[in-house]
């Protein structure tokens, strides 16, 4: 019965919460959804996953807040993609070794390298990617906003990969939001899938962008002030006195 369907399906394509396959990537055939209990491998070809994290980034401020480390790094090499099920592209991940050029925030490992774990990669007959994002490639330089690779990362048992105690594993925050490519001319550029507030930093000279990030970090994590000695303490007159006079968002260095 499915073959009958194939004959009729001249053009079929996936849509997700956003489009999963662009027009030029449409396969000529589509395997219909399986009955309950079966796997549902999509048709061969390109499969674009929605850029749809559970807790999305909404500003540079948010990006910095959610980052465990922020680094300027260069891609040393990419490793073969892995999928939990070779017969399905679901859960495809690709790892790349990143050499840390500079740590902007957090603590980089003594090895000077991290392993970047990203969603996507070539798994058998499927080329999996995330909408508006692309995997890093050897030689590219990025400014990365990273969170420890979550429990979904599937490389734990792979002995071919670097020792995670020496080369810890991280993932970009919010897919395309978590990395800005530094071009050969020095400009920083977020991928199309990043939010518009981050694209306002596109084409910034990387040094300028890093200064903005540092200013933002200082805003998110202002230094702890010692108790002001010699200043007469006050009794609060209203319940909200502990907020002081708010610093307007318009004065923010990182967009709130």
């Amino acid at each position, binding site marked *: 019965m499915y073959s009958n369907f194939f004959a*009729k*399906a001249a053009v079929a394509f996936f*849509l997700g919460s956003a489009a999963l396959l662009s027009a030029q990537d449409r396969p000529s055939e589509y395997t*219909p959804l399986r009955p*309950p209990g079966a796997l549902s491998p999509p048709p061969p070809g390109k499969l674009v996953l929605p850029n749809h*994290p559970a807790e999305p980034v909404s500003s540079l401020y948010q990006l910095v807040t959610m980052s465990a480390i922020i680094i300027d790094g260069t891609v040393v090499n990419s490793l073969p993609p892995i999928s939990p099920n070779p017969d399905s592209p679901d859960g495809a991940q690709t790892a790349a070794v990143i050499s840390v050029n500079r740590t902007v925030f957090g603590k980089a490992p003594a090895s000077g390298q991290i392993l970047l774990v990203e969603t996507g990669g070539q798994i058998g007959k499927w080329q999996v990617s995330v909408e508006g994002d692309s995997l890093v490639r050897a030689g590219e330089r990025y400014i990365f906003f990273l969170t420890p690779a979550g429990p979904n990362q599937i490389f734990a048992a792979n002995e071919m990969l670097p020792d995670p105690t020496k080369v810890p594993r991280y993932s970009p925050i919010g897919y395309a939001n978590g990395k800005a490519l530094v071009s050969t001319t020095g400009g920083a550029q977020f991928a199309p899938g990043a939010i518009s507030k981050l694209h306002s930093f596109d084409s910034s000279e990387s040094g300028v962008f890093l200064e903005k990030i540092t200013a933002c970090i200082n805003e998110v994590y202002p230094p702890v002030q010692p108790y002001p000695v010699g200043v007469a303490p006050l009794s609060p007159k209203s*319940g*909200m*006195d*502990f907020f002081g006079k708010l610093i307007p968002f318009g004065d923010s260095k990182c967009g709130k």
Partner: protein
Amino acid sequence: MQFRSLTGAALLTIVSALTYSLQAQTVQVRNDSYPGTALEVGNTVGVYISGGTYNQEVTVVANGGSPFVYGNLDMTGAWSHQSLIISGGGTSNQTWYLDGTPITPNNLSTTYFPKAPKLPGVLVYNNYVGSNCPGALSGAYCGSGSAAHWNYTPVAYCSTSTLLTSGNVNSDVSTWNSMSSNIQMSSNSYCPIWIHNGSAGTDNGITRATSGTCTSCAGGYKDLCSIVSPFECIGGSGVYGAEIILDATNLAGAASAQGVSVATVATNTVMHELGHALRLADIGVGDGKCSEVQSVMYGSLSVLRGCGVTAPTSCDSNELNVIYPTAPATCSAVGTNYCSSTTC
């Protein structure tokens, strides 16, 4: 005896010190009106200090001003304070002290509650003004070009997910069915809307829908309800399948952070994803304050739950009626030849 000269307060201090000396002194700022969401005007903010010793003096310095003395720790070495937010649009950089020593902030997880207030820089927002409702994923009902909608109703659904019960799913579907009489879902083992476990990347759940243009049966719909192939050609520009993929690992993490069962967050997620299956789009996440959250299609689980929006609203109902201004053709029963009825 030297003990006889001690006051009750001093004894309490000793007891408190012995009891709590091993605890870290921490301070947390919370949105007590809508836990885990951003602070905005009209919310109640709470400050919670713990791990200190009896009678320690609580002070705070905000944005470099003079210290305010707010009181003293109680017998358990704790202190709290609540206040109504009356103004917003800025940041308050706060350092809290116990007897002049800064207290370590104990913020909620930025992974699971990225919009919740955090020390030292506490963001306070003004209220969102206007409507913030979802649009359609693409195209228009009965339009040409990209697929946007189902061409028939009711659309059958089923679940093989182990993360929630059939009762949970049926409840979600029932709620959506009450939103618009023009598009309905019904349970069936042959199901164009299929809910199951899988990998959703960094998301708790994703929906991937399938559409197609079936040139060989142009001008009609063919055997859509046939039991032999429920996904047969539907002609034109309709959606003919939607998979809702629930990520067990991510949902387990979210459930743990929220302090609820996996089934609860899975049910919340399915409610949102069913909106996608019906072709509603996400609402982008802004500040993460509840005045922004007017639809179950808002894109943050923590904010949706914190704001108590776990079911579709009139916002969602209105957009459904835009996508489906009238009921598509009725697919009355499995086995019925759908080609006998056309709509667009």
